[in-house]
């Protein structure tokens, strides 16, 4: 079909490829100059919408705040993929095809040497050994009555460089698209002793691709223990969570997840986040009524001079709690060791309770009893599924192999023509060929020429 041939020529044309390159660079630049959702918060966009409504409308219209998932960018990648696939097909065909290397009668030889008449076989052997020393191997021999053509090649594997690179790129695009459409991710805060069963309401943040469901692991996990280490300047050195996993067959296992060292369970990856803090559990009990427990999440502080603190209302009551936590009541510390809290309880902007409490202690105010049940660690964990990581890593490997081959194995050929007289060689002509290899070939031809000059064959 002629239109398919035209389309194929269009996508393979060098100018088309260059234009696609330029469009891709431009789209990346758009992603740089317009703030992206991956690095900005929802509040930022709300403020932008209020302060610059027309600009925000423009961004929304073209999906510029998430350009990588916009229709126009995906279309561009689709067009690029077509061009890449056709290029790959063409390169693969030419790489694997058996090419009969034909002698070129009008080859322009740069070096021609008259030599004493010598037997053809001996000359061939000498040249093969000489070229082998330079890293060449014999590809083709053709002998006629008055000429013998020998073609040697070196670093021909470099021709596969583009093939590997383009295949790797295509694989990466496929993996990225698969991840985009089929991934699911959830972030959850979990405190020590708490079990998360994977129900969506447990997740603080959920994200999933268009063809994926909300992440719903077929197992529950409980944070058994959180371990945190600090550097002398109070920056975090290590955060490690020990989880107990229980799947639907009630099989239990323990896994340790730390920063930079995720674990995989049943196809779901656990990532330890940098978030951690303390959970203070209070129970308020009114006379004759069951107790109301509430967990207050207190973020860890950045330095020892400042006690971790939080202010929040107590659900189902009119009370607002202002909590200052002292992980170690004897000295400033990040580690829970005999912790205590300093609490201010407000009702209708009036202080109804002010005091210190430790876990297990009870206080009474305003006709209610307050129990400090526990003070434990909490941490943030991200669960992730469906990013086709093996495919991504495979594409990386192909890309790296490709660039290595292209730049470190520059392919070249040397054509040696032995001119014969009665089956005896009386002159040798040399020429070389290779893209971006002119100076290497020139040097090698000079070396061969010198050897022919001085050697006795």
């Amino acid at each position, binding site marked *: 079909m002629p239109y398919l041939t035209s389309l194929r020529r269009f996508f393979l044309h060098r100018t088309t490829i*260059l234009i696609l390159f330029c469009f891709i660079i431009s789209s*990346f*630049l758009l992603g740089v100059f317009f703030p992206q959702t*991956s*690095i900005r918060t929802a509040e930022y966009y709300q403020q932008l919408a209020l302060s610059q409504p027309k600009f925000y409308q423009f961004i929304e219209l073209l999906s510029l705040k998430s350009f990588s998932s916009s229709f126009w960018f995906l279309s561009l990648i689709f067009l690029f993929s077509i061009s890449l696939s056709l290029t790959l097909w063409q390169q693969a065909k030419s790489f694997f095809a058996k090419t009969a290397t034909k002698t070129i009668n009008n080859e322009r030889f740069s070096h021609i040497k008259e030599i004493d008449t010598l037997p053809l076989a001996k000359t061939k052997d000498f040249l093969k050994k000489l070229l082998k020393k330079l890293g060449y191997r014999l590809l083709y021999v053709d002998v006629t009555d008055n000429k013998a053509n020998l073609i040697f090649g070196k670093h021909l594997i470099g021709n596969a460089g583009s093939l590997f690179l383009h295949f790797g790129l295509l694989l990466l695009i496929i993996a990225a698209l698969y991840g985009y459409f089929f991934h699911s991710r959830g972030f959850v805060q979990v405190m020590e002793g708490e079990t998360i069963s994977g129900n969506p309401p447990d997740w603080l943040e959920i994200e999933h691709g268009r063809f994926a469901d909300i992440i719903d692991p077929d197992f529950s996990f409980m944070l058994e223990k959180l371990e945190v280490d600090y550097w002398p300047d109070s920056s*975090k050195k*290590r955060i490690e969570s020990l989880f107990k996993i229980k799947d639907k067959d009630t099989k239990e296992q323990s896994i340790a997840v730390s920063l930079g060292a995720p674990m995989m369970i049943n196809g779901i990856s656990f990532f330890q986040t940098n978030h951690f803090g303390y959970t203070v559990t209070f129970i308020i009990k009114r006379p004759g009524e069951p107790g109301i427990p509430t967990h207050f999440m207190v973020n860890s502080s950045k330095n020892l001079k400042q006690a971790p603190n939080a202010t929040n209302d107590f659900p189902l009551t009119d009370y607002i709690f202002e909590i200052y936590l002292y992980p170690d009541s004897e000295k400033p510390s990040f580690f829970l060791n005999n912790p205590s809290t300093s609490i201010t309880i407000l009702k209708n902007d009036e202080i109804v309770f002010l005091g210190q409490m430790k876990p297990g202690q009870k206080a009474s105010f305003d006709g209610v009893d307050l129990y400090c049940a526990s003070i434990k660690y909490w941490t943030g964990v991200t669960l992730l599924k469906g990013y086709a990581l093996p495919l991504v890593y495979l594409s990386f490997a192909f890309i790296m192999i490709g660039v290595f081959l*292209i730049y470190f194995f520059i392919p070249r050929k040397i054509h040696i023509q032995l001119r014969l007289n009665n089956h005896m060689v009386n002159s040798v002509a040399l020429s070389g060929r290779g893209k971006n290899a002119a100076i290497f070939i020139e040097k090698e031809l000079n070396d061969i020429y010198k050897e022919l000059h001085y050697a006795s064959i």
Partner: protein
Amino acid sequence: MISIKSYIMPQSNLLQYEFICYWTAVVIYIVATILFATSIFFNKEKHLATAHKLSIAGLVPHASAILIHWYISGHGPYLSKFESLSSSIWIAIIFYTAISTLKNEIKSLGIIVLPGSFLLLGMGIMVNPAIEYLPGSFQTVWLIFHIFFNKLALGAILIALGCAIFYLLKCKKGNIGYLKKLPDLPVLDIYVYQFTGFCFVFWTITVIAGSIWAHKSWGRYWAWDPIETWSIITWVIFGLYMHLRRFHGLKEKKGAILMIVCFIMVILTLFIVPFITNTVHTEYLL
């Protein structure tokens, strides 16, 4: 077993020695630069060899300073701005001295590599050289690959830049004065291509190692962070250079100019974008 640390002097003394070593390296690089300049502009052949030897000599106090800082901080020289600058320059100079020892004809590139190096090193010393500790998400071998190959890429592009500048100068002024000592134009042209190619290879590894590290730390191998985006733009421009060179015959003068564009992109990504944007790289990179 006696701890090796019992033989090492107190930290405050070590910091003093580090400071002395850094400034010694800066002074040696300055003297080498002067000698490179005199060898080129006043045709003093011997000064070129001396300058080259001084470049190698300067690496010794520089390396000592880096090792002292490494010992005190407990991690490699890739965290703070100061460490990043210092180690990048060290790698760039090592790259230059190694290549110019193998290929004598490009020794004069020192006139481009050295001044930039000592200025950046001096700037790094003026930036707060305090010890910073390694966050948990940075304790991975992939970060080391990411940063090591990034520095190799910087070294390679500096040499390619030098070759491109000399190529353009030789095109414009011909074979006069110091330009006579440089390799011929076709040789310079192939060097531009080769060293840009090396930079491309190392840049590819940098991006890939960074992606793997990002995934292991944050569960995302690509988040369109400004540095990530600029690094991929730079990578695509390298790809454009490759295509234009191989299929559109863009070599020689135009190739050298495009190579300079690639260099500008590298500098933008490594040294300018981190200053003007707020990313995970800002704190720990230039």
